[in-house]
């Protein structure tokens, strides 16, 4: 039950140094050995070791979390650190990036890792006909140059201060040059564990590599086994009967059972995963900022967190930037349910009552229809009559999202502010689901992108979050926690990553047998 925000992290960081000074042990030191068995959802019979296709936990945990490495890595505390890259530096306009690669790294088949591997692994994403999810990231690189065997230089089309962050994306894995097809077929990476067995949609077994470059600082298990269990009840049974040591995504309704069992514990973190109700801001009545403001105050966010997420989440403030983001403005004034304010803005808009349709389906997120009905009930108090339109789950993303003036939607969030904004809030972006086009916002977005001074960026991103909070066209009622359960046989560090489920999918690397 550790809820980690950047602020509480700073606090624990401070506490840690005090404890260290007094010589008290902070936690049991990790010890090596044992076999981690995890029951994970998100597995498919179509899974493969091709990073370009990865989209759900099972393969992300198997590939980036176990068998493969990326250039950079987001640590459990949200800070960026090198994985296969040792260090990097940028030109003043953040356009040219030079990465120094780690020396003495070997692939599981014995091949040495170097600059050629980086270039070829990145080029996979922009190859002819490739349908990579990381294509927008890699296609922003106009030139890749090998300087020495262990130094690569990237020239970007436009300055991007987040470039090293983007290199930690789970699609961008490092494969051995010249044998990428073989590496995809067999799973040959530089990760802490080498593949022993892999049956798509069934299981993955990997064994700790001797003499790994990460040494004794990570990868404490002798062996890890990931078992594909897509059914949430079966996953919970497997944990309760001791067949597995950890499971992801627990069913909130059965949480009490897990808590009652003395051998298991529930772990949850608030990340960037959020549920939204985007309004098309160029369509009436949402083109009127006062209508949008009335809707922001006509919603009881806390009730939604309590009833839809059963408390496993945090209220949203109408920005997509969450606690796992670097420049999250968590101290902004929180929007809350206020029928009087909503009525006031209705009057400003020249309306006494408003009838609008809200399209929802559980394809958007689990409980979306219920959430829409809660919204309907709370908005009534402000004279807003929401008509909940239940849409079919099939084809929801093609026929409803981006098309209906107001609907339910979800985002898993992005590691960086710029990535999130440029995906869904930049003018003209294909997934800009609120037709958001605000001159000041757009200006800030462009200037913050190439800003290397972290203090200035923080101010810019804060202003952007404030714009979205007061005038924005997306209602973000809540951030949903990542909730997972563990057997007491497994120990984890105090700080667990909140960018993805299961310690950023890196449990094989960071956890150990107690």
């Amino acid at each position, binding site marked *: 039950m550790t809820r980690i925000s950047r602020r509480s992290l700073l606090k624990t960081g401070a506490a840690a140094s005090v404890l260290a000074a007094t010589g008290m042990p902070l936690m049991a030191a990790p010890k090596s050995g044992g076999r981690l068995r995890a029951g994970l959802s998100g597995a*498919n*019979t179509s899974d*493969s070791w091709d990073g370009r296709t990865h989209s759900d936990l099972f393969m992300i945990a198997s590939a980036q979390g176990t068998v493969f490495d990326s250039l950079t890595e987001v640590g459990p505390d949200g800070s960026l650190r090198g994985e296969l890259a040792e260090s990097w530096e940028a030109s003043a306009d953040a356009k040219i990036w030079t990465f120094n690669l780690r020396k003495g790294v070997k692939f599981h088949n014995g091949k040495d890792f170097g600059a050629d591997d980086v270039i070829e692994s990145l080029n996979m994403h922009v190859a002819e006909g490739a349908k990579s999810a990381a294509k927008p990231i890699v296609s922003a690189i106009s030139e890749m140059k090998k300087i020495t065997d262990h130094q690569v230089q990237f020239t970007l089309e436009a300055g991007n201060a987040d470039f090293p962050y983007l290199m930690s994306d789970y699609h961008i894995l490092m494969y051995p040059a010249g044998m*990428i097809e073989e590496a995809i077929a067999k799973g040959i990476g530089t990760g802490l564990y080498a593949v022993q067995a892999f049956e798509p949609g069934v299981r993955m077994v990997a064994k700790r590599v001797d003499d790994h470059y990460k040494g004794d600082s990570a990868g404490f298990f002798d062996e890890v086994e990931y078992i594909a*269990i897509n059914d949430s009840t*079966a996953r919970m049974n*497997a944990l309760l*009967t001791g067949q597995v040591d950890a499971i992801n995504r627990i069913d909130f309704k059965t949480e009490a059972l897990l808590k009652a069992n003395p051998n298991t514990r529930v772990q949850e973190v608030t990340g960037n995963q959020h549920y939204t109700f985007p309004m098309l801001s160029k369509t009436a009545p949402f083109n009127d900022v006062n209508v949008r403001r009335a809707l922001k105050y006509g919603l009881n966010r806390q009730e939604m967190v309590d009833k839809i997420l059963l408390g496993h989440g945090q209220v949203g403030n109408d920005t997509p930037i969450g606690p796992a983001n670097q420049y999250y403005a968590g101290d902004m004034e929180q929007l809350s349910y206020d029928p009087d304010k909503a009525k006031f803005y209705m009057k400003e808009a020249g309306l006494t009552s408003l009838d609008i349709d809200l399209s929802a389906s559980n394809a958007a997120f689990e409980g979306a229809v219920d959430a829409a009905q809660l919204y309907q009930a709370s908005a009534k108090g402000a004279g807003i009559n929401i008509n909940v339109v239940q849409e079919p789950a099939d084809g929801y*993303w093609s026929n409803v999202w981006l098309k209906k003036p107001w609907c339910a939607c979800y985002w898993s969030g992005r590691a960086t502010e710029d990535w999130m904004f440029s995906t869904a809030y930049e003018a003209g972006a294909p997934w800009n689901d609120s037709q958001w086009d605000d001159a000041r916002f757009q200006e800030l977005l462009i200037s913050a992108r190439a800003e290397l001074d972290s203090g200035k960026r923080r101010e810019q991103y804060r202003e952007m979050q404030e714009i979205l909070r007061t005038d924005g066209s997306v209602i973000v009622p809540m951030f949903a926690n990542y909730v997972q359960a563990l057997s007491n046989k497994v120990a984890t560090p105090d700080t667990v990553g909140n960018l993805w489920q299961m310690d950023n999918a890196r449990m094989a690397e960071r956890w150990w047998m107690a």
Partner: protein
Amino acid sequence: MASILKIIAQRLALGALTMFVVSVVIFTAVNLLPGDFAQAILGQGATPEAVDAIRRDLGLDQPPITRYLDWLAGALQGDLGNSFAQANFAAFVGSDAGSGLSSVAGQIAPRFENTIFLAGVTALFAVPVSLTLGILAALYRNSIFDRATNILTLSSISSPEFFLAYILILFLAVMNPILPSLSNIYEGMGFGERFTKTLLPALTLTLVVTAHMMRMTRAAIINLLASPYIEMAQLKGISPLRIIVKHALPNALAPIINVVALNLAYLITGVVVVEVVFVYPGIGQLFVDSVKIRDIPVVQACCLIFAGAYILLNLTADVLSILSNPRLRHPK
């Protein structure tokens, strides 16, 4: 003998005709499913261009008749086509990447083997148990034993499979950890371990199929017990057990074989829920996963296999009941 061969040939031809009709039904039904593969796999990222590109890649833009004929022609040559999901991903590397999974047949074969193993283990328990129970129930009919067996088997067949599965998990895995609740068998697993892991799903299925077989055995035998030749045997003073086993059972075999075959077919086609509950990597789970992502070739192939299993086992039942009945063997 010649007449039997003729009967078998007739039945086989009828079976082939049924298969053809079934293939039309499957194809139509699967294509009537709402939503399509491109939209399912792209999810939130389903832009019209991306959907069109994938549909074109997979030939989904062709008219249904053309697609049906292509599929039928392939299926007749044992080529069930390529899994959509795999075809889509093979396109990333330009080739199959050596996983051998892109063909539907390659994907189904290991799963089907697992399902057959589960069906085999279940049959190993279910058939002897239900026959014995049926015979005993006929022998002690209307006794407490008969009633108890009836109530037990009927209530287990009336409960949904997943409910039985969870009850068994509760008693045999959670409260008394005797058997594993997770049946994640894999290739290269030792037979002993494989067998242990298969036990819980097999027990669940046993509970589901026992009632039908046991009741049929009981009914068939009781039916015969009223015949004059049994009365004769009784008058001769032969013991009731001997009458049933030696005189009644052989004549009751035909209906019993029929119901056993039907239930064996059920073990192959009806395992979907049980496999999902126990995470058993059989064809049922593959079927569910494929429906979820609208992987039409795999769904069609699974349906075809289910239909084939039913037809084949029914055929076997027919032939066996003819062989077990002299009157049918020598038609006058």
